[in-house]
């Protein structure tokens, strides 16, 4: 609704214009130098099938659970001490005492530790539900097989997080669960005994096992998960979201509207067209 007449803008209109410029300036500045805003717009406003289902939010839910684990874990690492040595004053291991300190003494420590401890299970459960949704919707089929494989790797990494994190409280449960877990790995044929000894950091579980598991738990495996999630999301954006199996659109039925006709048969991703986001990413003055 562009106004065709000309008049002097009122004071409020001027102020509004100034505010808009104030807000847009940093956004434009960033976009011009990085193209990031266009990329985010492309990610957020990309086309999805019209009949997507609530079940298809399980992946985002699992991602959120992972972010909760990452943030609470970083903060817990500020207080946790991965040391198996005994505190001479109390006779208790330092690692275990630091967990007691977090839970009982520090303000809101019980909450953040609880979030991390229960969030771990939530993360695994959401991954399984997401996996079930993908399976039942047939969303693992061509061309999304690779994304299924990456998802399975994330699931395995998540379980390794659970295994390594379980040792950190350094109590009897943690110790014996790790003994059994490592020895289970040790019964794998051929390389099992070597893997077990590598995980233990020697022949017996010791303080080195604790520091090693701590490093794996907070540096190695989370790094791998972040990389895998990035790949996973890249493929989701590249290949598009699957329609539910009952989708009439995707089955090529009832192409009533122009929108449905633009779908390639068998694919739910619309034929690309120049949109605001992609136009921004195109080379200035270049060919399409």
């Amino acid at each position, binding site marked *: 609704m562009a106004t065709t007449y000309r008049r002097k803008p009122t004071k409020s209109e001027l102020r509004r214009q100034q505010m808009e410029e104030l807000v847009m300036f940093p956004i434009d500045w960033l976009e011009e130098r990085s193209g990031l805003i266009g990329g985010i717009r492309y990610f957020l406003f990309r086309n999805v099938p019209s009949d997507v289902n609530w079940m298809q939010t399980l992946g985002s839910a699992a991602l959120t659970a992972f972010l909760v684990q990452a943030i609470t874990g970083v903060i817990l690492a500020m207080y946790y001490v991965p040391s198996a040595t005994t505190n001479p004053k109390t006779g208790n291991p330092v690692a275990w005492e630091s967990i007691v300190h977090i839970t009982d003494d520090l303000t809101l420590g019980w909450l953040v530790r609880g979030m991390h401890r229960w969030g771990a299970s939530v993360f695994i459960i959401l991954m399984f539900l997401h996996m079930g949704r993908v399976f039942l919707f047939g969303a693992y089929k061509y061309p999304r097989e690779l994304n299924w494989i990456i998802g399975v790797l994330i699931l395995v990494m998540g379980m390794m997080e659970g295994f390594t994190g379980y040792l950190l409280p350094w109590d009897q449960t943690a110790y014996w669960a790790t003994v059994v877990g490592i020895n*289970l790995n*040790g019964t794998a044929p051929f390389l099992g*005994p070597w893997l077990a000894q590598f995980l233990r950091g020697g022949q017996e579980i010791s303080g080195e096992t604790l520091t090693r598991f701590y490093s794996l738990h907070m540096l190695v495996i989370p790094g791998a998960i972040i990389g895998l999630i990035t790949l996973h999301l890249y493929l989701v954006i590249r290949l598009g979201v699957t329609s539910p199996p009952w989708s009439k659109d995707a089955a090529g039925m009832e192409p009533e509207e122009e929108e449905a006709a633009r779908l390639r048969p068998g694919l739910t991703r619309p034929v690309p067209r120049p949109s605001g986001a992609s136009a921004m990413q195109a080379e200035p003055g270049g060919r399409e």
Partner: protein
Amino acid sequence: MEPEQPSPDTERESLHEEPHLPPPTLWPIGFAIGIVVVLVGLIINPLLISTIGAVIAIVFGILWARDATAELRGQPLVVEPERREMTEAGEGMTAPPADQQGVALVQVPETAVTRSVFLEGATLGLGAAIGGLITLPVAGFMVLPSFLGQEQHKVDLGPIEKFPLGKWFIATFVVDPSQGEVSRRTAFVRNNGNTPNPEKPSEQVPSFTIISNRCAHLGCPVQANGPIGQKYTGTPSFKEHTLTGPAEFKSVTPAGYGCPCHGGQYDPEGNRIAGPPVRALDRYAFEVNHGRLVLLSTYSVSHVEGSGAQAKIYKYKEVGPGEHVDGPEQLFYPINPPHH
């Protein structure tokens, strides 16, 4: 769009067709190596190595000087300029005008390594070398300490007179005082009395049965099935501050051993009688040193025939819980990691 004129870029491109001056040469590197050899030789062997270095430096120096002054002395330079086909313009380039194309088109031999290919290979090769130099020691540091330099810990359990003949004790002791409580272990100890030395039958040697409490299924601590303490066994329990640290001995009359984790059951000699374990309980090797019982490393046992000093123990090298030492399944574990 109008057909583009040859842009400044294209002109610069054609400049590349002219020979580079001065040409690249290896002589200075050889000269530098010669100087290095001289300097190293001054430390190691001035007479021999420094002489060799001086010869290298002089030879390469002369060659370098000859090359550098070639133009001054009026000799033609023998440097082949690099040429590329310019008929097809790539992205961002325009083809040279038709009259220049013939000049630019010099047939490059199939085997020739062009500058760009060489630089590409050099970048990849150098990157791989740097990556390898960094990765190999770091990966070694990550993996090797778990397998090398595993120490054997001897544990002193006190004088052997403390163990009455034929009585069982649950012994708990710290294997490695520097590790503390995490290295606390439990073993079931029985004094079998003296027995003839298998090597010298005329000599009598002490015999002990010392069974590790590590379950042969997945390594949980097995418990003695039987009453504990003097009230039931008639033998007093005792504590001992030995040479390697405090140890505790509880008297027990075991009818066998049971694992709380997955229900594995063993007889008093450690033979598996029920449940998931794949072999008998491990045992400690021991020595008697100045009348004191000293535990050495553990060894694995497939099964035991008989009991006490006369028992026939089928010994194997120490392996992890859940690993078969006999039967066809042992083929799954052909090489075990080094063990003390």
